């Protein structure tokens, strides 16, 4: 314990994690194991600790958030077709995050641009009168 104590006393587990997170956006499994090595704690314990704190991300943050409007107008004008195409392109169902963590697909309630339905919002940017063939371009743009 005393060996561990000296090293943890110089720098906390949280500081070690935050430093790595600042570097690459989240705390990877390798980071957890590296912190475990540095502090002499088991990896499961480091993970347990880090999972407690809301500022620490133990999963890759979502980079692209796609919201499909489910207002009646968008629904009427083919919003659901768009949704299915988006689900296929992103590799995840609505309400979920794609396995690699890049995309998150969700609904958004009517956004009040019904005259240009169907609408989607990608990372806060509104796209109006979207057709399925525009989607690959829009999604690619968002990952930049």
């Amino acid at each position: 314990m005393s060996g561990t104590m000296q090293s943890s006393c110089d720098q906390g587990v949280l500081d070690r994690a935050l430093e790595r997170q600042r570097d690459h956006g989240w705390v990877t499994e390798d980071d957890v194991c590296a912190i475990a090595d540095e502090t002499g704690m088991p990896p499961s314990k480091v993970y347990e600790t880090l999972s407690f704190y809301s500022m620490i991300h133990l999963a890759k943050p979502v980079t692209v958030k796609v919201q499909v409007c489910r207002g009646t107008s968008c629904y009427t004008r083919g919003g659901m077709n768009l949704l299915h195409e988006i689900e296929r392109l992103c590799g995840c169902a609505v309400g979920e995050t794609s396995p690699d963590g890049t995309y998150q697909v969700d609904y958004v309630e009517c956004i009040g641009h019904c005259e240009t339905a169907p609408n989607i919002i990608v990372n806060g940017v509104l796209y109006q009168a979207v057709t399925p063939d525009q989607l690959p371009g829009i999604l690619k743009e968002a990952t930049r």
Partner: protein
Amino acid sequence: MAVQETRLALRNMGKIDPMSIDDYIAQGGYEALAKARQMDRDELISEVENASKLRGRGGAGFNTGFKWSGAKASEGDQKFIVCNADEGEPGTFKDRVILENDPHTVLEGMLIAAYAVGATEAIVYCRGEYEHQIALLRHAVEQAEEHGLTGDVHMHVFSGAGSYVCGEETALLNSIEGQRAEPRLKPPYPTVAGAFGKPTVVNNVETFANVPVIVGKGAAWYAGIGAAEYPGTKVFSISGDVKNPGCYEVATDASLNDVIELAGGVTEGHKIKAVQLGGSSCGYIKGSELDQSVDFDSLRRNGKSLGSGAVLVLNETHNLVDQVQQIVHFLGHESCGKCTPCREGLCQAGVILDRFAAGKGTQADLDMLQALHDLMATDCFCALGQGALTAFVSAYEIFPEDFRERMVN
């Protein structure tokens, strides 16, 4: 007669560059440390404990010197001084203001405490959201080391990473040790077995900021300010519906009205419906009852609490159901998940309050909230759970019509 601010903890605010130790020294900084180090340790502790009667500014109002003498008396090859800068209480930002204006006063207070109890390790645990303040603190520690002021004390700045319950001192100690920030069983108290099992003093930022003043100007001088049993000043964080929200430091015999007046009073065209004093775990005070002293003991006698000194002013447009709903969801999010009543009780209270917010509350819901409060107040592991529904109970007691408005029929 308008009350004036009395700045002790904030004495250097606006007068110095927080990045410059020379500025701090030019204002008489670190003189108190030099003076303390000439004093006998027991005498120094007695000055703080008995003469100045300095009490913790974090919320519990515990005698600071008593903690010091406890830690000094405890056996340990190593002792810790920990500064609780995990200021997470909603509506509280006084520690931030102190740290970003005058980080050295906190370090000086810690070094004096370290000398008094014989500690060689000093840690500032600052909430992770205060990135700028952490950088300032680290810079200040470096400067103090360069100036040879730290002596044999190793000073460290630890960052939190988003957890409200770290404000509870034993949870904070667990966090320093790299554990989940869950509160510990007491006893043993931190002064006996704290950080890494060693005797530890945990004090709040504002408390440490007062220490150099007490040592510098003398405990007797300090004890002459403010209320007799809770002397000195208190820094209030005022937010909500006031003209000039901000931090105001007043002698502890001021009234709540004075404090609000310092902030310019309620916003134009409104009147104060209620004030939540102390933070989310504290009750509300009616707008018509603000003429009471803000010192810890007289508030307690009136069934109120000073808490962290947060003053949230609410005008007549607010329905307190929404306030309580926010608080319960916040605390539910911050519950550590250890004890059943807090973890599950806050979840159910949240569900019930969501019903009220949607105008679908029932009498059975009110009864259940009261039952949950009764359970949590006695059964929860720590103060977070014990006080989680205090705001509800207080709001319902003072403004039952707010709840009736949101009930079915």
